[in-house]
C-alpha cells in the first residue's frame, strides 16, 4: 500500500489551510486605504496556461497579506465585533476639494487673543441652561428660549408709579430685538472686515513688490539712473539711511553688544568662513602675507608656541577690524569709546 500519495494530499491540505504567504516581502500593504500592491513581475507561463486561475491565485495571496496586516492592527471592541484602528494611508491620492481655509477671526476673537481672555470655545459652549424653577434643561434662545421668559410669563411685575401704558412685555421684547439686531450688525461687519483683509493684503503686497521692481530698474542703467529722462512728478529715489547710536550711551548695553559680537564670531557659522589664511596664529603686524602663501604661515606657526583655544577667539576678535585693533572692542569699563558705533555698523553689514 502506497501511503505517500495520501500523505502528500494531507500536506497539501494543511498547506492550504495556513495563512502564511511566501512572497510577503514584495507585497506592499497600505492598511490605511485597504490596498495591497504586489510588485512581483507577472509569471507569463501561468498567465498563458490558465488566466482566471492565475489571477485568482495572485489575488488570494495579496488579499491574504492584506487580511494578515488588518487583523494585526490594534482594535477596539464594538457591538458589531472588533473594529480595526486603521493607520493613515501611505498612498497619497489627490484630494477632491482644496483644504478648508481657516475662518477669519472676529473682532471679539482678535480682542480676546490680544488680551489673553480665554472663554469657552464654540464647541464647548452649550445651547441649554438649567432652569431652577422648572427643574429642567431649557434652551438659552430659540424655541422656548430662556431669553423670552419675561415676555411669555402670564403675569409680570409693574414698578410703582409707572405710566399707564407701561408694558413690561413690550420693553423686554424690544430689548431682545435690539440685541439680535446688534449681533447681526456685528456679524456683518466681521464678514466685511474679513473680505477687506482678503483683498487688501494681496493689493498691499503687490504694491510693495511693484515699487521694489521699479526702484531696481531705475538704478539698473550704466549711470545708475543719473542720466535717465525723468517723468513729471517722479519722486527722487530714497536710499537706506544709516543710523548711529549716540556716542554717549549705556555702558552695560555697549559691553553686552560687544560680547554678543564676540560670541557670534566664535560660533560655528563664523568659523566656517575663516579660511586658513585668517587663522589667529598668524602675526598681523609682521605684514600680513597674501592668503596664497599658506606654506609661509604654517612654517611660522610651527615656531610659535601653540595659542590656547580660548585666546584664539579673543585675538581673532582683535584683528577683526582695524578699529578693533585700537581696543575699541573692549572699552575700558566706565569709559565711552567709539565701540558702540562700530558694533552697530557691523550689525548693519552682517
Amino acid at each position: 500500500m502506497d501511503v505517500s500519495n495520501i500523505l502528500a494530499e494531507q500536506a497539501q491540505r494543511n498547506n492550504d489551510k495556513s495563512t502564511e504567504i511566501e512572497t510577503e516581502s514584495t507585497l506592499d500593504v497600505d492598511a490605511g486605504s485597504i490596498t495591497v500592491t504586489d510588485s512581483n513581475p507577472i509569471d507569463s507561463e501561468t498567465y498563458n496556461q490558465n488566466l482566471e486561475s492565475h489571477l485568482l491565485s495572485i489575488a488570494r495571496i495579496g488579499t491574504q497579506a492584506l487580511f494578515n496586516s488588518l487583523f494585526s492592527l490594534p482594535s477596539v471592541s464594538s457591538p458589531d465585533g472588533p473594529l480595526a484602528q486603521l493607520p493613515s494611508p501611505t498612498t497619497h491620492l489627490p484630494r477632491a476639494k482644496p483644504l478648508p481655509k481657516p475662518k477669519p477671526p472676529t473682532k471679539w476673537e482678535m480682542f480676546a487673543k490680544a488680551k489673553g481672555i480665554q472663554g469657552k470655545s464654540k464647541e464647548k459652549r452649550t445651547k441649554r441652561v438649567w432652569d431652577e424653577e422648572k427643574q429642567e434643561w431649557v434652551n438659552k434662545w430659540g424655541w422656548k428660549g430662556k431669553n423670552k421668559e419675561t415676555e411669555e410669563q402670564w403675569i409680570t411685575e409693574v414698578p410703582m408709579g409707572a405710566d399707564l401704558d407701561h408694558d413690561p412685555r413690550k420693553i423686554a421684547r424690544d430689548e431682545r430685538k435690539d440685541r439680535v439686531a446688534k449681533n447681526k450688525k456685528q456679524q456683518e461687519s466681521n464678514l466685511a472686515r474679513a473680505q477687506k483683509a482678503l483683498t487688501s493684503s494681496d493689493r498691499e503686497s503687490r504694491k510693495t513688490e511693484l515699487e521694489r521692481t521699479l526702484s531696481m530698474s531705475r538704478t539698473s542703467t550704466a549711470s545708475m539712473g543719473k542720466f535717465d529722462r525723468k517723468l513729471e512728478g517722479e519722486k527722487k529715489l530714497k536710499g537706506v539711511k544709516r543710523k548711529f547710536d549716540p556716542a554717549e550711551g549705556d555702558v552695560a548695553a555697549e559691553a553686552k553688544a560687544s560680547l554678543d559680537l564676540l560670541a557670534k564670531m566664535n560660533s560655528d557659522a563664523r568659523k566656517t568662513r575663516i579660511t586658513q589664511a585668517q587663522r589667529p596664529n598668524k602675526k598681523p603686524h609682521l605684514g600680513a602675507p597674501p592668503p596664497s602663501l599658506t606654506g609661509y604661515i604654517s612654517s611660522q606657526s610651527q615656531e610659535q608656541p601653540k595659542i590656547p583655544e580660548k585666546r584664539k577667539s579673543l585675538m581673532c576678535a582683535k584683528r577683526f577690524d582695524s578699529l578693533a585693533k585700537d581696543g575699541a572692542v573692549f572699552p575700558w569699563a566706565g569709559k565711552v569709546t567709539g565701540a558702540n558705533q562700530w558694533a552697530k555698523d557691523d550689525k548693519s553689514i552682517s
Partner: protein
Amino acid sequence: MLRTVKPKNARSKRALDAREPKEIEDGRIAIFVKGTKTSELLNGVMKDLMALKKPFAISFSKKNDIHPLAAVNAVSSYSSTSKVAESSISSLEFWASKNDASLFLLSQTSKKRPDNLTFIRMFNGRVLDIVEFGAENWVGIDQIKGPKSSPGHPPLLHFASELFTTHPRYIQIKSMLMSFFTGSTAMTTEDGGNGGLSLKGLEGECVVSVSVAPTPPTLNNATDSSSSPTTLPKIHLRTYITSVSSTSGSSRSPRLELTPMGPSIDFVLRRYTNPDPELLKQAMRRPKVKKAEIESGLGKKRKNLEVDQMGDLRGRVHVGRQDLGKLQTRKMKGLKKGMFDEGDGDDDGDEDGDSEEENEGVKKKPKLTQD
C-alpha cells in the same frame, strides 16, 4: 470668501455646508455619463461599476455629445486647442459643480475606438486628469452565480504587477482606480476619523483585483516611457468575494478564500492626459497634523537624530551658549582679583564685574604699565 448663493432656509444651508471643503473628505461621487453612442458591453460595464460604486454614484441616462480627449492625439500631447474638448470639459465642470461630484465615467463607442471607457478625475471643480481604456471580455455580475457583496462598503483593492510602481502610466492608472474605488478616509483613526474597519465585515466583502498581463521585454529595456499604447500590456480587472475559514495555525487572521463575483473586465490602454502640475500640487496638499495628535506620538519630527552610513543612530546634543564673560584667560599673579582691588582702589570701574573679568587679557597689559 462670501458665498455667492445665499441659502434661504436652514435645510439648504446645511446642504450647502455639506459641500464645503473638509479636512477629511467623504467618498468621491462619480457620475456615469453616456456618450453619443454606446454598446451593449459598455452599458453592462457601466451598470456593474455603478453597482460597485453605490451609494456614491449618479447615473446620467441621456446621451451627451462630449469628447474631453478630442484635443489629445495618440501620444498624449495636446495637438491643438480644440473647441470640442473645451466645451466638453466645461460641461463636465458644470455637472461636477451641480452634483458635487469629482469623478466621471464616460462610455462611448466608435469605429476608431470601440468600447471606450473614460475615467475623469476632478479637483476643485476642474478636470485634473483623464485616462481612457478600451473595455473587452466583459462578464457581468448577473452572469456569475454565487453570493454578492452588500453595497456601500468600499472594496478591498489588490494591484498586481511591478508596473504599478515603476511605469508612470500604470502609476496614474493605479491612482485613478484607487480614487474611484476607495471610500472616505474617515475610517482611519489617525487622520481624525473616529470609526474603524469592522473585522467581522470583512467576510463577504468585495475584492477588486487589478492585474496586468506579463510585461513585454521592450518595456523592461526601454528607459523612456513614451512607448506606444499598443505595446503596453492589458489590465485585467476582476472582482471576488471573500469567505473566511478558521485557521489551523496560531495566527490571528483567518484563512481567506476568494470566489469570483463579477464583473470582470479587461482594459486596453488608450489616450490619457497628465495632471496639470500646479493643480496636482494643490490637490496633493495635506492637512497639518493636529497638536493633540503630535502629543500622542503621531507625526512627531525626530529632530537631531540620524542614521550614519554604518547604520548607527547618531544624535546631536545642544549644550547651550558659551558665556565668554567667564572665559579663563592667562593667569598672572598681578591680575588676581583680590590683589587688584587692594592695589588700586581708586581705579576706574572695577565694580563692573561682568565685562571686567572678560576683558582682563587684553586690557590689563596697558593698565599695569600705566601703574
